[in-house]
């Protein structure tokens, strides 16, 4: 290849798309990143009897407010839980953040599955903020995405009842929320994405009730929801291999700890630290239990500072017959 070839190719590539004029999408992007709720939630008097630790956070989250998903400084929350959840070492301008788990979809050799990702949100309304992050697809890991139609908004999240027997109500707004999503067919998994996210943020395994544009919904994304939405078994809907920490893009020490969950044959979990296409370190560990999602943890020592990709995967027990191992990857920078 020479410089002439390069120039010719540049022209060819430029030319091939030179008349593509996007119709424009700023409005659509902004509709999806809007942080203002349409209808502020009003907390019912019945909530006052709630007594468990989890519901303390629930009360705090019911004050719906702006500024929960962006970096802008939000107003100080009117009510604060007496016991803040885990907080980060750094304090963004929005006040003390809380850590929430947000579930996204990703592709695995066993089809589309959910992956959990940790996010920090302002304390005033963590369940609403977490639900929004999930539905809007604001994943840190570029391999993850949302299964909800673009433009879907979460306008309120509320909780009523006690613990697992309670009901979480999620108010949605947007177009095309009733019909089964075209093309993807992941309506059921989209509901699981939301259900897992809201339940984790509330700290209870409560049933979800959904409303669309202010009316209780019978069907959402082609799925019947009039009886509420329950989470399905994690082994059925979540990826059998997930790295919980470090996060994608994290900067880590030369020796760092990896934690995650796996549902693996004989609980065997393998890992490689990749630099480009080369595995510079590798090893294996076992998850706490076999064949069901259970935690694992191991230490990695990188050869030196630089950018790496950590790959964690299960063994391909089928001996090459199957679709291959399930993996999760995170890019890390070793300082």
């Amino acid at each position, binding site marked *: 290849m020479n410089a002439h070839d390069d120039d010719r190719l540049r022209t060819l590539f430029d*030319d091939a798309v030179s008349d593509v004029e996007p119709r424009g999408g700023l409005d659509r992007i902004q509709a*999806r990143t809007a942080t203002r709720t349409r209808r502020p939630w009003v907390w019912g008097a019945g909530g006052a009897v709630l007594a468990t630790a989890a519901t303390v956070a629930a009360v705090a989250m019911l004050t719906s407010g702006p500024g929960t998903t962006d970096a802008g400084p939000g107003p100080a929350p009117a009510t604060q839980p007496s016991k803040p959840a885990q907080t980060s070492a750094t304090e963004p301008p929005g006040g003390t953040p809380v850590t929430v788990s947000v579930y996204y979809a990703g592709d695995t050799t066993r089809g589309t599955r959910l992956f959990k990702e940790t996010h920090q949100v302002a304390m005033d309304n963590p369940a609403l903020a977490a639900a929004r992050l999930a539905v809007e697809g604001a994943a840190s890991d570029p391999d993850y995405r949302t299964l909800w139609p673009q433009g879907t908004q979460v306008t309120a999240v509320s909780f009523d009842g006690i613990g697992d027997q309670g009901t979480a109500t999620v108010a949605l707004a947007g177009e095309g929320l009733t019909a089964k999503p075209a093309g993807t067919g992941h309506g059921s998994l989209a509901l699981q994405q939301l259900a897992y996210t809201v339940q984790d943020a509330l700290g209870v395994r409560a049933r979800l009730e959904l409303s669309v544009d202010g009316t209780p919904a019978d069907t959402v994304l082609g799925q019947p929801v009039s009886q509420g939405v329950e989470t399905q078994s994690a082994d059925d809907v979540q990826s059998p291999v997930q790295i919980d920490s470090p996060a994608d893009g994290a900067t880590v020490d030369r020796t760092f700890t990896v934690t995650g969950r796996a549902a693996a044959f004989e609980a065997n979990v393998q890992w490689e630290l990749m630099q480009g296409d080369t595995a510079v370190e590798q090893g294996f560990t076992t998850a706490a239990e076999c064949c069901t999602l259970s935690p694992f943890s191991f230490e990695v020592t990188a050869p030196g500072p630089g950018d790496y990709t950590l790959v964690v995967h299960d063994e391909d027990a089928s001996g090459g017959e199957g679709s291959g191992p399930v993996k999760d990857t995170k890019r890390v920078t070793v300082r």
Partner: protein
Amino acid sequence: MTSGTDRPVRWDADTAVEELYAAHYRRLVRLSVLLVRDVETAEEVVQDAFVAMHGRWRRLREPDLALAYLRQAVVNRSRSVLRHRGVRARHADAERTVVRDLPGADEAALVTERRGTLLDALRTLPDRQREVLALRYYLDLSESEIASTLGISRGAVKSHASRGVAALRTLMEDDS
């Protein structure tokens, strides 16, 4: 980490979306068209990438980092869309969109054919080769920028590029 950068831009997430949209939206859509061919799909991919960038702005904070994140998200989402959606079924729409602004019909047909040839040829390449070629010849990225966008080594970028160029040359010569 929130104040770790020497020169933090004063943008909030909403401003970042507006500024980066104005400067890069069209180019990113065109990049995605090179990868997925269909304009409508490309727009969805790029819009998704902007929404994701908005959610991550607190950690990006720098336009350069945000743009790198957008590029990466566009490439990854384009790849994912290709694998998991019936993009091929929508090619008829893509052709229509591509020709709509051209002047004379005869001239348009010729130009469309030539452009279609490159897009068709790209579609037959393995994902990585197509991605490396698009980043190199459309976005003019350096080898190391391509390596970090795709999460592969510079050596791999080189080899994908040379194989891709060789394959393209054969395909384009066969078709013309």
